[in-house]
């Protein structure tokens, strides 16, 4: 197993690799209990063009980075996707949560699939497609996963704009299947 890096070294290794494409990076450290045990969350905002490479880079730090889930925000003009990874699991209190976020313009909400690096990402990618209306390029299975097939096309439950469900929820009787 490769040597475990400290949170600062992890951020540095990303910055060395991708330079200005790492737009933002912060390390959130908190302590618990009388012995002040520390736990660490790393938050990074990366450019869409290098997103997949950052995941590849992450896979060099830990052979199988664990992808918990990807969550998303509708930020108005852009859609933010946040991939929650954890690495160095297995050792006592060694685990570090790495949250890599990427902003996609609403005019072209496209991102590459990471299922070839982490096959377990499939369900969460399918969910992002149907919930946020992003397009995952190269996804092996693009069907809907949670919402039913008769849910109107072009409506995305997590969006906060006109493609969101607000209007539909108020006028459920008008929904055509």
């Amino acid at each position, binding site marked *: 197993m490769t040597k475990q890096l400290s949170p600062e070294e992890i951020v540095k290794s990303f910055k060395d690799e991708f330079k200005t494409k790492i737009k933002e990076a912060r390390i959130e450290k908190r302590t618990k209990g009388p012995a002040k045990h520390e736990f660490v969350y790393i938050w990074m905002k990366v450019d869409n063009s290098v997103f997949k490479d950052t995941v590849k880079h992450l896979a060099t730090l830990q052979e199988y980075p664990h992808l918990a889930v990807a969550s998303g925000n509708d930020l108005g003009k852009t859609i933010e996707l946040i991939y929650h990874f954890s690495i*160095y699991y297995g050792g006592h209190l060694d685990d570090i949560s790495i949250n890599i976020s990427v902003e996609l313009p609403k005019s072209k909400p496209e991102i590459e699939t990471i299922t070839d690096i982490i096959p377990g990402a499939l369900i969460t990618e399918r969910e992002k497609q149907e919930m946020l209306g992003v397009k995952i390029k190269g996804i092996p299975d693009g069907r809907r996963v949670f919402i039913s097939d008769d849910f109107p096309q072009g409506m995305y439950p997590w969006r906060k704009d006109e493609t969101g469900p607000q209007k539909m929820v108020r006028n459920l009787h008008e929904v055509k299947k």
Partner: protein
Amino acid sequence: MSSKQTTKTTYQIPIGPIHPALKEPVAFEFEIDGEEIVDVDVKLGHVHRAVEWTATKRNPIQILYLAERICGICSYCHPTAFTIAVENIADIEVPERAEYLRVIQAELERICSHILWAGVAAHELGFDSVLFLTWQMREKALDLTEYLTGNRITKGIITIGGIRRDITKDHLPKIYETLNYFKDNFEKLRKIFLDDKTVRMRTQGCGILTKEDALKLCAVGPTARASGVKKDVRVDQAYFSYADLDIECITPDILTGEVNGDVYDRIIVRLLEVKQAIDLIEQCIDKMPGGDIVSEPKVAKVLATLKKASGESIGRMEAPRGEVIHYVKLEAGNECPFTWKVRAPTYNNIMPWVPMLLGEQIADIPIVAASTDPCMSCTNRVAIVDSGKRYQLNREELHKMSVEKTRRLMK
């Protein structure tokens, strides 16, 4: 064999009233070659209730009670993961005593959940007498839960900044009585599940998930640990007071010296975790310091603080089935969260079903599917495509086949 037709037909299961407890709807589509499963497709979402969307119309205290209703068995884990995320955002310090009390509640829930699962597994194998035995034991754990929280299932015990009910000296005799009852009966359970010849025949070498698959498919909880992946949030990352307690990751090699990743290994992990949970509760009672149990008892003040808070964070905790992770984003000036994303452990344990089920027999479907302890384990109706002739098996028939296989092996 080579002339096997593998046309898939789509099959839709109606959304609707669901089975209680573990029997929740999920649709599988299997491709069968004779008795052997050659392809699996899992269809989800039949109980998607837009809880996350609903939460953007509620304030954080209301969400605690909404989160509790996500799942009837992990009714403690979801509000807790949400609480951890919110506490991270608003920098709320939790009193030490509350952190220990939170561990006690979490471990009590683990005992309830694992014993419930053991009963379901026995039922799937056709040993209903064991189902009644285990659920009788679970009843004791539920009685204790009711005694400590006031409710059996949706406990309403967690709150932002602490916990709502204390454990006093008066509670201790009943807690020790219940824990001793479990210790006394543990040997009985171990013998039934681990030594019985028929159970071993049905579970050993069945539903294998290799370590590599578990890692690649991001499996969590006992499912991952039974495949030898040491991953347990209680050990990996400090939350509550777990870092102060003596705890280690449970993998099946502790007992047998080897890891096979089969159904039998998943039984071992869960049984050992029951024992671990009892030990952790005892440790907590011994080590628990005095003091407050909540940082701010007035809910209105908590809400005022949260209304000013802004930021995003995640809350991770180890539920009985694996890691629960919640992402929360709060905006200053808005009482309701901007985003709330819930990730339950079964979400990650769905994909590992595919390698587990491939190559198994139809009669093994119930026990293999149940072995990950899914939160919607109902193999409600299975569409089977056999030489172009399509027919359906419902739950009862499938269960009957599983029971028949056990009986055959017993002869």
